[in-house]
């Protein structure tokens, strides 16, 4: 396939009836929508990260450091709301799913391009609402992103606007999932059966089903919460005959599968990067494909592990614990498969691969600490401590976040037709890795020593860990700036990139960088094995 970028028109050039910024906001091109999501999510991520840094400064010393207690509650709430609903849930699906899914299956767009565009607009509306909660007179919500009853039914802060924002954002997730499922079922190129697809579409497929089926449950739960606040109904408030545990169950029935929405596409990205930079086909293609579905399915059955100390029955506790251990198995299978893919491969340590290696390391730590949390006995010690905070940041940030960075460094030349500086990228990755571990590892330790989460004050014996953590936060933030600056510079002034800079074997590497508007100017040639590096 030729890579003469001059002979075709890139999707980055204005071609439709709208020009300039309108040409982007009104675009139905999945590639432009992917970049719109990328820019929005990056902006939200930095807002959330700065809020996180403010929390870190506050926690650097016991007692009041820079903010009052009420403000601190508002900070960790909005940090969670932004990061969960506006960054990691849309995250990889909306950015890389949108950009790559049609390319991977040889399609010229998704099944419903206008619906796709609508989901980005919905993200904008929901995000504006979420940000507005910070400025209303009743004060930002202080319930944590989990909105537990009965406090969430009683606090005077802007819970209704925040939960409405989350409800609106949920639609973007549902409709994106719907779009991707139909796309995968209906728009694969001729000759591409399900088991000829690369593994990234498999990951997107599994995650899309979760987005579709789980999100409505939290939707109705949030409406019930709003109803309770507005009309004084007692669904959840025990003073009115309600059941606070009911809220927790309903909430976590979505929010646990939600984490698989986050991690499955991340694993899909890693599964594309590793064979490419080892120039070897993926070890255990079918195992990885089926394990994606297994994680999605079993992930619906473990939500109670967030609630072991809530007063659930013993039967419930051991059931959820057992299922939690079971759901770890397909994840572990993937890790073994990635490592075996590297074995006897021809390894090229480029930035995407370095990020992928960091991902595996951090994901293993996050995953195994999840087992400590998943086991009922040990959970009692670490529930609601900094240990949990460390665990989920290792999984979401160390896992999904690093996979996101890996993905952006991997597909950057395809998206922009230019390359970034490898040395800066690699050093940025290393600094990011160091900062990340400084930030979160001490939290495991002070967590099991007793440091509670969401507390803004603490006993002096935890301060050593908090200080290291705060320093780590600033190192991490600096590394993020380096990484993003390098990428932005590359997009503007980097060397022109060829169609296939990494010797990849999937279909996106057979078309020019950047692609034309409708992706494939001639019909794509579908290989039975998508990871065939010998041809």
């Amino acid at each position, binding site marked *: 396939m030729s890579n003469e970028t001059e002979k*075709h028109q890139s999707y980055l050039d204005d*071609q*439709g*009836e709208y020009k300039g910024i309108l040409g982007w906001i009104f675009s139905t091109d999945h590639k432009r929508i992917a970049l719109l999501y990328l820019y929005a999510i990056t902006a939200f991520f930095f807002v959330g990260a700065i809020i996180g840094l403010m929390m870190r400064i506050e926690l650097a010393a016991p007692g009041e450091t820079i903010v009052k207690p009420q403000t601190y509650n508002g900070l960790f709430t909005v940090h969670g709301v932004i990061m969960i609903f506006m960054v990691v849930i849309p995250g990889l699906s909306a950015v890389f799913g949108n950009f790559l899914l049609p390319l991977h299956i040889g399609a*010229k767009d998704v*099944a*419903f391009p206008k619906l796709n565009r609508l989901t980005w607009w919905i993200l904008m509306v929901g995000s504006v609402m979420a940000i507005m909660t910070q400025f209303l007179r009743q004060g930002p919500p202080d319930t944590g992103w989990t909105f537990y009853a009965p406090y969430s039914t009683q606090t005077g802060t802007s819970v209704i606007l925040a939960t409405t924002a989350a409800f609106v954002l949920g639609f973007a997730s*549902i409709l994106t999932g*719907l*779009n991707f*499922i*139909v796309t995968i*079922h*209906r*728009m694969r190129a001729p000759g591409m059966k399900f088991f000829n697809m690369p593994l990234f579409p498999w990951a997107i497929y599994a995650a899309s089903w979760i987005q*579709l*089926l789980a*999100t*409505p*449950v939290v*939707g*109705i*739960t949030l*409406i*019930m919460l709003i*109803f309770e606040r*507005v*009309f*004084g*109904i*007692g*669904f959840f408030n025990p003073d*009115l*005959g*309600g*059941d606070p545990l*009911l809220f927790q169950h*309903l909430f976590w029935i979505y929010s646990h599968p939600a984490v698989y929405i986050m991690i499955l596409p991340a694993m899909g990205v890693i599964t594309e990067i590793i064979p490419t930079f080892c120039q070897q086909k993926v070890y255990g293609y079918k195992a990885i494909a089926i394990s994606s579905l297994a994680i999605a399915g079993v992930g619906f059955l473990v939500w109670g592990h967030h609630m072991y100390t809530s007063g659930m029955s013993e039967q419930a506790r051991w059931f959820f614990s057992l299922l939690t251990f079971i759901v770890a198995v397909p994840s572990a299978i993937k890790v073994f498969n990635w490592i075996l893919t590297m074995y006897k491969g021809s390894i090229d340590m480029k930035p995407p691969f370095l990020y992928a290696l960091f991902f595996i390391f951090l994901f293993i730590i996050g995953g195994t600490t999840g087992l400590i949390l998943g086991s009922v006995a040990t959970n009692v010690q670490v529930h609601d401590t900094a240990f949990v905070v460390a665990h989920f940041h290792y999984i979401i940030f160390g896992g999904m976040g690093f996979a996101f960075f890996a993905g952006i460094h991997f597909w950057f030349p395809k998206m922009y037709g230019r390359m970034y500086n490898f040395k800066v990228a690699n050093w940025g990755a290393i600094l990011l890795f160091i900062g990340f571990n400084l930030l979160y590892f001490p939290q495991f330790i002070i967590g099991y020593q007793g440091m509670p989460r969401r507390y803004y004050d603490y006993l002096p014996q935890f301060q050593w860990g908090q200080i290291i953590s705060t320093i780590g936060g600033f190192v991490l933030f600096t590394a993020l700036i380096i990484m993003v600056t390098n990428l932005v510079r590359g997009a503007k002034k980097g060397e022109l990139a060829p169609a296939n800079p990494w010797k990849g074997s999937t279909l996106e590497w057979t078309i020019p960088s950047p692609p*034309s*508007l*409708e992706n494939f*100017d001639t019909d794509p040639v579908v290989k039975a094995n998508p990871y065939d590096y010998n041809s």
Partner: protein
Amino acid sequence: MSNHENHPHVHRDDEAQKLGMWLFIFTELLLFGGLFLVYSIFRAQYPQNFHESSLELSVTLGVINTVILLVSSMSVAISLTAVQKGNYKLSRLMLLLTVALALAFMVNKYFEWGAKFHHGLYPGSELMQLLERGHHLYFALYFFMTGLHAFHIIVGVILLLISYVKIGKGKVKSDNFMHLENAALYWHLVDLIWIFLFPLLYLIS
């Protein structure tokens, strides 16, 4: 070089449209499913109160509304078959009948709710706060579930009216009727939800 820019949707995929609507219907089932779950939990907790409260509802009106919706599902099905056979006049007539039945349902709902409001029974009212726990929860769920359902009736009516207009404009016809089929599918969903609501709220006495 393939053509691009302002071409209208050249690629038509009816199966994709249908699959999309079915998937959306699954999400609606899960949305209402959450409410049904909450209902069953509280009913298990307060069975006597739920039984007593449901005596306040008019079973007659509920039956009438059920028949209305069932007939409306029939009329929308006739409408679809009519389009498939090229009988656009009948199709549009049946759509209007469906919408008329939906409006009749809403009128009944207006009177039902109106009667409750008149007695001071509405979400957030003083009377509601004074009720026993089980009664309070029953009526909260009654308003919530029927209210959410009524909202979906309005959405369904809009979809049906759009189909009505499209048939008139020739955009929906015997060889291109996916839009009407999807609207009818959605309407059947709205009917199905009521089929569950009716016994749970009206027939537990």
